[in-house]
Structure formats: structure tokens, C-alpha cells
């Protein structure tokens, strides 16, 4: 904008930059605090000396957390579960979205409407539970994969991405003798790669962070995800709050270390995929 260097403008820019830096720093405090506790010595924590930087730096809490068999098993199991369910989710999304993106497909509109309705008509937790039980999936790993195998919302985003591809590309592929399946795999999917990546990440994050379906459907601890095991760790503090005691069933720093380990996959992936996510939100937002 013009008159960019007026004094007022410079003061404005300076103050608001400072404001946003402060806000961002405040937003990072909770994460720094957990990191600090996880890396601090027990006595320093009990004495209330730890704020947002570690005191008596030690990685003991991490070694101890990683000695807990249930936690480590749950971690690797959750990674595998996350990858498997993301693949299934994406496959289902593409299988539904590609045919429905074709304008002339007979019956396509009806099927699309039926999918859209599922976004508004939720039967509720209990009917869904009874349904999963009908299929004998309660307390199996399938209960964590199948019921959420396809999100209508993500399917619509995928569908819009397919619609955004130039007709001429389809025609060219057809003339070269591609069948629909061939055309989808070798020509179209590489073109919608950013959307595919975004949705895959949405699905992966949802699976990694999900706790309610584990709580609803799973009884045996061998199918507990990392969030479920972490929940048990975290809740041991609530017991002590209730009794007004400081009897920590799980020591504070080990709890913090487990939280950090559970955040790790998201924290590692986040910087790389952040751009995709932003794009993904915009696609969804434009749709409204």
C-alpha cells in the first residue's frame, strides 16, 4: 500500500508484530511446560522449581516411560493402525469420489445426496454401537477401522478435486485407450496428489488422536491405542486431586514424558505437512 513508510504505519507494524509474537509465545507455553517437566529431575518438580525450562536436566523419565511395555506396545500398534486405516480411508474415498465426480453418471446425484445426508443425520452413539455389535466387531480392531472408513465431508472435497481437472485430460486418456480404472490410476490420481495427501493426513491425525471409539468398542487392553494408555496415565492425577493427596501413581515427569512421546508423531510430521493442511482447509472452506 502507498505511504508505506509513514511514521504511524511503522509504529503500527511494530506494535502488532510484537503483539503476535507475544500471543504465539503464550500459545507455546503449554507445550514447553510439558517438555520441561519431562526433562527435569523429580525433586526440582516437587519443589516447584520447574517453569518452562528443564531443571536438573535428565532423560530418566523417557527411559522409564519406554520401559513400560503396555505403553510401547500401544505406541507401535497405534502407528500400524493409523497407517492401515488411512490407506483404507483413502481407498474408500477415491472409490466413491471418482465415479460421483462424473457429470453424466446415471444415479450419481441420488447417491451423492445420500452421502451428504449422512453428514447431518447422526443416529447417535448407541444405535452405532448396536450396529457394530450386530457385525460382531465389538472388541476387535475392525471396530476402530470400519465404522469410520469413509467421511462424506472428505469425499466431497475429493470429488471437487476430481471435478477441477480439465476435461481434455480425460478425453486424451480415453483416446489413448485408457479404461476408467486405468485412467484414474495412471492419469488422474497423480494430478490430485495434493488433495490426496491432505485427506490422508486428516484421516491419519483423526485415527491417531481418536479416543471415543476405543472407549466405546474396545474392552481388551491388547487393542488399546496409545491415547487410551495415555488416558490411564493422565487420569491417575485426577484420583489424587480428588483425595486431595499428592500420591502420584505415575510420577509427574514420567507422565509428561509419555505425553511428549504421544505427541511426537504429530510434532514430527507437522512442519512438513502444514502447507497441505492449510490448503485442505481452504478447499473445505470455499465449499462452506
Amino acid at each position, binding site marked *: 500500500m502507498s505511504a508505506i513508510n509513514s511514521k504511524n504505519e511503522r509504529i503500527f507494524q511494530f506494535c502488532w508484530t510484537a503483539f*503476535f509474537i507475544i500471543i504465539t509465545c503464550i500459545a507455546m507455553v503449554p507445550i514447553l511446560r510439558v517438555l520441561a517437566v519431562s526433562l527435569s529431575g523429580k525433586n526440582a518438580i516437587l519443589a516447584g522449581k520447574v517453569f518452562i525450562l528443564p531443571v536438573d536436566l535428565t532423560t530418566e523419565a523417557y527411559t522409564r516411560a519406554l520401559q513400560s511395555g503396555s505403553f510401547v506396545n500401544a505406541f507401535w500398534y497405534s502407528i500400524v493402525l493409523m497407517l492401515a486405516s488411512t490407506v483404507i480411508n483413502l481407498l474408500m474415498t477415491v472409490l466413491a469420489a471418482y465415479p460421483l465426480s462424473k457429470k453424466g*453418471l446415471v444415479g450419481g446425484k441420488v447417491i451423492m445426496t445420500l452421502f451428504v445426508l449422512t453428514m447431518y443425520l447422526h443416529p447417535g452413539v448407541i444405535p452405532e*454401537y*448396536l450396529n457394530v455389535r450386530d457385525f460382531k466387531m465389538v472388541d476387535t480392531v475392525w471396530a476402530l477401522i470400519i465404522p469410520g472408513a469413509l467421511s462424506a465431508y472428505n469425499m466431497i472435497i475429493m470429488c471437487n478435486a476430481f471435478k477441477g481437472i480439465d476435461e481434455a485430460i480425460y478425453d486424451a486418456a480415453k483416446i489413448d485407450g485408457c479404461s476408467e480404472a486405468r485412467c484414474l490410476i495412471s492419469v488422474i490420481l497423480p494430478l490430485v496428489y495434493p488433495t490426496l495427501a491432505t485427506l490422508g493426513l486428516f484421516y491419519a491425525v483423526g485415527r491417531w*488422536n481418536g479416543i471415543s471409539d476405543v472407549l466405546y468398542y474396545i474392552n481388551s487392553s491388547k487393542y488399546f491405542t496409545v491415547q487410551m494408555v495415555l488416558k490411564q496415565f493422565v487420569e491417575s492425577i485426577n484420583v489424587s486431586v480428588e483425595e486431595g493427596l499428592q500420591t502420584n501413581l505415575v510420577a*509427574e515427569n514420567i507422565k509428561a514424558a509419555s*505425553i511428549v512421546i504421544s505427541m511426537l508423531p504429530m510434532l514430527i510430521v507437522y512442519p512438513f505437512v502444514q502447507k497441505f493442511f492449510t490448503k485442505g482447509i*481452504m478447499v473445505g*472452506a470455499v465449499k462452506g
Partner: protein
Amino acid sequence: MKKDKKGKVKVYLRNNWQLYLMLIIPVIYMILFKYKPMLGVVVAFKKFNVFKGIWNSPWIGLANFQEAFTSKDFWSALKNTLVLNIGDLIIGFPFPIFLAIFLNELRSEGVRKTTQTLLYLPNFLSWVIISGIVTQLFSNSGLVNNLIVALGGESVSFLSNSFIWRFVYWIMGVWQGAGYSLIVYLAALMAADASLGEAAYIDGATRLQRIWHVTLPQISSTITVLLIMQIGRLVNISFDRPYMMGNTLVRDASDVISTYVYSVGLAAGRFDFATAVGLFQTVVGIVLVFAANAVIKKMGQEGIM
């Protein structure tokens, strides 16, 4: 003539059978896992017997609803749901709009990108993790109390006082969700026409005038859509957040419909009653979305339907 039509169908199918083949699995999935459970809501009108199953259990009309409407726990869950959601609306809704507008005024690309990236980060943390973080921050030995004590004050029981707990719930909601809304608004602002602001500037408008008369109207439709969606969800509440953030000492504030359905339905096994409560929530939710949409359309804005 008839033969011709048949031929056309044949050609159509020969060209498109692969598309229909692709659709088979998703459509079967949709029927079995989205529409079949919808039939299950009839449980709300029955006295559910595990051995008889959904269809052979006896009808009891509206008895489950009557019981819900006369139950103190139900009203308390409904009240808490509304209080927590309205608080989110008042505290959480305007904040990202404010951030987006002023972030958009900044010239430094670096500050804009970094703020966006870091504020969006908590969105990727589960409520289990966040509830763990909450104890690290607000418990008696948490960061905030460490600070209060270090400054010579008395420690405050943030997590066992229902009144204060609500604010913790709302603040963590802002922390987790503001980054997402911020990006939505910034995207809307980027799509908007920047030359309008420049024109206003040349015409001598002050910054506040520009924000009020140019920037805000440019994102008003995005604001409206998000507002309708949030009002439509006033009776709906996610399960993870209140369930994970609540504790036994603040049950009178943290018991909401979703956790109530879970505890009477899945934990205590009263499937019929819990289904009725859930159905009530869904129906009121749909009515609210339509109502909010209608009001906003009356006010001359574009709705979502």
C-alpha cells in the same frame, strides 16, 4: 425404437461399468454403517432387551423420553452442554476473527506465516494429551500455581472448582481451535479483493474505517457460515473434550449430553434410554441449524442451505 433404447443402455454400461464397480463398496458401506444404524433409533421407543434384540423388544412409546425429561441428570447435562457451548461461542468465536484481521494488516510475511503455523499446532493434539497438559498447567503443582506461589500468592484450585474449571475448559478450547478458524478467515481475506482496501486508503479512510467498512464485509459471509454451524451445534457437544477435561470434583459442570449418553448407555447398559437422549439431541440440533440459517437469511446474508 425399443431395441434402440436397449442398445443405448448397453453402450452406456459398456463404457461405464467400471465406475459402478468402484461405487459398490462405498455404497454398501454407506448402507450398512450409516443408514442401517439410523433404523436403530427405534430403540428409543422400546424397552430394549438384549436377548430379544432391537426388533423383538416391546414398544413403550415415549416412556424413555418422559423419563429423560423428568430426570435431574438429563437437565443438568443439557444445561452444562448449553453453558459450555455458549461460553465457547462468546469467548472462542470472536478471537480468531480479531487475530485474522490484524494479522492481515501486517506486512511481514514471516510473522504471518510463523504465527499461523504455531497457532495451528495445538489442533493436532488429542484431548487426552491436552487434558494431560491441563494438569501440568493448572493442577496444584502446575505451572500457573507455581507462578502464583513464587510471586507470594495462595495457590488456586483451578480444576476442582466448577466455576473456574469452566474457564479452563474455554481457554483450552481457544488454544486448541483458534488456529484452525484463523486460517479459514485468512484464506477468505486472501481471496478478497485487495484493491478495495487500497482505494479506501487513497480516499483517506483511517485504518479502523478500512477494517470496519472493507475488511469485515469481505469476510462476513465466512463469519456467517461458521456462526450458523456453531449455533447449530449448541446442543451437540463433542465427547472427547468434556470427558477428558472433566474430573469427579467438577461433575456438576462437566457432565454434558455426550458423556451422559456414554455413562447411562454404554457404561450402565441402558441402551433404550440413552438412545432417546441422543435422538433428542440430534433432532434439536437439526432444528437449530435450520432456525439459525433462516434468521441469518432474513438478515440479508447468504446462508448455508
